[in-house]
């Protein structure tokens, strides 16, 4: 769905979003590099733990990164307990090794990222379902009203309505032609 929306975006907007994605990619790499330089264990943990978010940013071509952002947020939320443990446990490579050796660390981080991906993918469908249900209700009400009118005035009312619509359309066409 997001892809479909992206496809409908005009070309200049697509170019802008491409540039932003590349900027974000390089910003992410630069940030990670700085983190690796200043705080190597934290940097390595972030580098490994945020791989799903990086993949999401790389693959999400929607200008608003509607999938990558939730993935990043929840990926980060899943990695925060490990970061806290690292920072409170001495912040050295052995602590990092111990954390990375624990499979629960990455499972939590990656699982949270997966949950974020699922959220990004399912919530629009839920919204669409609500919108379609509202439209269907309106359509049913309109059809009921038309049926009431036909019952009271016969089929002629539909013919007259068609005539009115045709006349209005003709007038609109004439007006458009005159304006052009």
């Amino acid at each position: 769905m997001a892809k479909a929306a992206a496809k409908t975006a005009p070309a200049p907007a697509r170019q802008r979003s491409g540039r932003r994605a590349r900027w974000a990619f390089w910003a992410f790499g630069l940030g990670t590099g700085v983190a690796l330089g200043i705080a190597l264990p934290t940097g390595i943990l972030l580098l490994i733990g945020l791989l799903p978010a990086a993949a999401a940013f790389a693959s999400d071509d929607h200008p608003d990164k509607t999938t990558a952002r939730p993935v990043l947020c929840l990926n980060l939320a899943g990695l925060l307990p490990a970061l806290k443990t690292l920072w409170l446990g001495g912040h050295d490579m052995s602590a990092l090794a111990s954390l990375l050796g624990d499979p629960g660390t990455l499972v939590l981080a990656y699982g949270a990222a997966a949950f974020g991906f699922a959220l990004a993918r399912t919530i629009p469908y839920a919204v669409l379902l609500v919108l379609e249900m509202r439209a269907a209700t309106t359509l049913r009400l309109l059809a009921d009203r038309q049926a009431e009118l036909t019952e009271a005035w016969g089929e002629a009312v539909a013919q007259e309505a068609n005539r009115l619509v045709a006349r209005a359309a003709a007038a609109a066409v004439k007006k458009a032609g005159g304006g052009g």
Partner: protein
Amino acid sequence: MRRRLERERCVAGREVEIAGYLVDPGRALPGLVGGGLTAFVARPARGDGPAAFAVRCRTHHPPRLRVIERLPDAEALPNLLVPLGQGLHGEGEEGPQRHILYPLPPGPPMMVPGERRAPLGETDLIQNVAKPVARVLGELAERGLLHRGIRPDNLFRPAAGGPVTLGEAFALPPGFCQPAAFEPTGMAMCAPCGKGEGTLEDDLYALGVTLLALATGHWPLAGLDDRAGIRLRLERGSLAALVGQARLPASVATLLRGLLSDDPGFRPGLDEIALWPGGARARPQTARAVRKATRPFDFAGEPVLDARSLAFAMAGRWQEGIRAMRSPALLAWLDRALTDQPLTERVREIVDADPLGGESDGDVLLSRTLAALDPQGPLWWRGIALMPDGLGTMLAEAHAAPQPSAERQRDLADMIEAQAISRYATEHLDRPGMIELDKMGRLARAQARARVLGSGRERLLYQLNPGLPCLSPLVRKAGAATLPALLAALEAAAAGSPPAAGAPTPLDRHVAAFIGAGLDGAIDTLLAAAGDTGRPEEAGLATVAVFARLQRLQKGTKLPNLARWVAALAAPAVATWHGKAARARVEKALPEAAASGDFALLLEALDGEAARAEDRAGFAEAAATFARAAAAEFALRAEAPLRQAEAARIGGLAAQAVALVLLGGTVLLLAGT
């Protein structure tokens, strides 16, 4: 005149009451009326009144009702039998016939046809015949009326003598009873019912012939048939032909020279006759001599020496006349033997207008040629002669006779279609009233061509014959001559089961034309709509509206049977209502309204103005609402891709918000532990 149009009422015995007089249909009075009509004994039903007789009219020879309506009281016309009243009576195939009541004349007729009697003296003739008749004609002329029945057997006076009284002349078309010898030659050629109103000069001519008959004591041109008499007068001139060798008193001879002149301009006026002989004006009393050819024209073996005689001969043998008209011999004779250059040129123009010699144009061309050859002649068409204003009575005879002549009907229809009347007018532009005649000819053709209900030949028939009963098979036996009578007759016809023996509608072409003529075109649009079979709903409504209008004019007499019949025909009009509720209401109200016999109620039920406006407004609103709903439905279906995009946008934002909330919650949770 006392106008007493009352419904006839049967009285004990054979007598019936008509217009306040008891008429005995079993006792005829001979010698009082001509034209094949019968006069019956009549007496006042109540109180005193003059002894009277009743003349039974004929449907197909309409009486002169317009003249009767405009006649002054009897006191103003002591020398004329002024109608006392009129009414309808009778049953059977022909239906009721109009009866006109007259006072009994003061004595026997002056002379009966073919009779030889002692000549009247000069003084008696002038003082007791010419002057009283001239006074009557003067009184009539003041009102724009003519008598058209002056002849010896229609002049009455007591055996002891005294001024004469003119007999009846209103029960038949103008001049119907006049023998050919008593009419100017042009008028004498006409069919009896096609003479038209005529002119005062025609009455003066008839007075002249009457005076001649009384002065000589024998019937003019007795022993000659009409054609021979006309031919003789054309060849020799009326005066010479009629007077012959008779010796007349000088004063009478002078008067007759004027009255019997073939040129109407030579006839003396009424004021001259009233003062005769002292009032006689100096004028050339001798009419111009008939222009004779140097050699006769041989027309079908008949030698002819003058143009009018030739026209009369050609008209009598129509097909041979057409052939003669197209032969060069005619023009050569006119040019070289008759030496009448203007006439030759006129006939040449007419004949040259037919370069192809088409059969269809032969009648028109001969009619025009005869009008040119005989400027005083009538309008000729396929051997029928009529004065153009006699078209109405000719149509009445052709259509209303007990056994109508299809051939005569076709001939008259063709004559109207060919605009023969207008063409006749253009040949006589020097005469007064020809512009109006030309217009009448065009209007008659337009009317005859019209096909919508309430128009056409039937309408022409009733327009030209006010008082003619409606000839519709539905009401013919009722003799309905007025709109109230027509409504009553239709009500009676509608009482049968099925109504009127299965007639499809009470508004057939004759009934519609009769109504249209009676209302002088006031409801022509409604009548046309009532005849629109392609739109039965509108036709039904229009039919109801027509009868509602008639009923209102007749003070609302209830007509339940007719209303039920019309309501059944108007049932499709229910479909003109849009709303189903309105239709149900109308369907329910229809039988009740019809049973009331009130067409206004029926029309209100079927086409009430307020309810109709409400129905139209409601329908328009409903249609607009329906259209809006349809448009909204269309828009909703068309917006599905937009909804998808919106869902993606909102869903993306929502996912980000949820993710941020969870991230924030995690931070807070870890910060707290």
